């Protein structure tokens, strides 16, 4: 089982993500520096939260142009799983791996709190640990999480079951279109989400509702390895 966390200058949830991955997979993820333009063979790539390049210009914009992103795209094209959390989600939209954009929160303020999410679609390896319609509580912490896309794109995302999570009604912290909190690419191997599942894997901290994502990924990936 090979996992990697990509580290950009200004990433700051890279350690948290590595801890969550190691707890689930039992092996330490490779920490890959943004200037590396080649990646080893991997099963899961995680783009962590933080402020890559200070979030200057646009969140995720500069990271989406970094050498390592080209390698991430190649792997995504081959079907390797890519999970972008928070700033990682912003990098995925900026790089075109996911549609739409994450704009400034509607009230213009940074928001850090627990939010209630509803699982919308379980049709991807990321979501195996969850049940459709299940409500979970996971923290958010971002300034630019206001998901925007044109209506055609939104309709397509919904029609294709590519909305992984929505904010529960009345708990939309940022003004996202159709309460979208996380989306998948067409193939279902790239997930971007604003909430932080990696912060919710320990009952002493922010609860354990994020844990199912990582245990689900382990279940999803282990048979692949055995077949391979």
């Amino acid at each position, binding site marked *: 089982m090979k996992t990697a966390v990509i580290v950009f200058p200004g990433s700051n949830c890279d350690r948290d993500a590595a801890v969550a991955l190691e707890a689930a997979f039992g092996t330490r993820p490779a920490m890959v520096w943004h200037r590396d333009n080649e990646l080893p063979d991997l099963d899961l790539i995680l783009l962590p939260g933080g402020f890559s390049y200070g979030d200057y210009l646009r969140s995720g914009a*500069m990271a989406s142009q970094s050498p390592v992103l080209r390698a991430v795209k190649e792997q995504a094209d081959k079907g390797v799983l890519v999970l972008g959390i928070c700033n990682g989600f912003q990098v995925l939209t900026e790089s075109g791996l996911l549609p*739409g*954009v994450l704009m400034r929160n509607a009230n213009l303020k940074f928001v850090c709190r627990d939010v209630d999410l509803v699982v919308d679609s379980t049709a991807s390896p990321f979501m195996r640990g969850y049940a459709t319609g299940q409500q979970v509580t996971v923290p958010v912490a971002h300034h630019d999480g206001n998901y925007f896309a044109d209506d055609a794109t939104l309709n397509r995302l919904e029609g294709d079951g590519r909305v992984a999570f929505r904010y529960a009604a009345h708990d939309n912290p940022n003004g996202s279109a159709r309460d979208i909190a996380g989306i998948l690419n067409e193939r279902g191997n790239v997930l971007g989400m604003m909430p932080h599942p990696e912060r919710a894997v320990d009952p002493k901290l922010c609860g354990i509702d994020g844990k199912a994502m990582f245990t689900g990924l382990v279940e999803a990936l282990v048979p692949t390895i055995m077949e391979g």
Partner: protein
Amino acid sequence: MKAKVHVTLKAGVLDPQGKAIGHALESLGFEGVGDVRQGKFIELDLDETDPDKARARIGEMCEKLLANTVIENYSIDLEG
């Protein structure tokens, strides 16, 4: 050569910042303010002295980095 780049949101794209500014102006008592849109204004110094080449080069910068062309337009002005 100095260049000025304006990056603005495309029509129809939601502009939370512009909207918030509009609201704030209203509540400060400024009346008759209609639509407000906020964009970016980037000033660059370039070695390039040929205007056509400079423009092409900056266009490339905008496409690659300065603007998110899914939601933003850009325009380039060259100076001196």
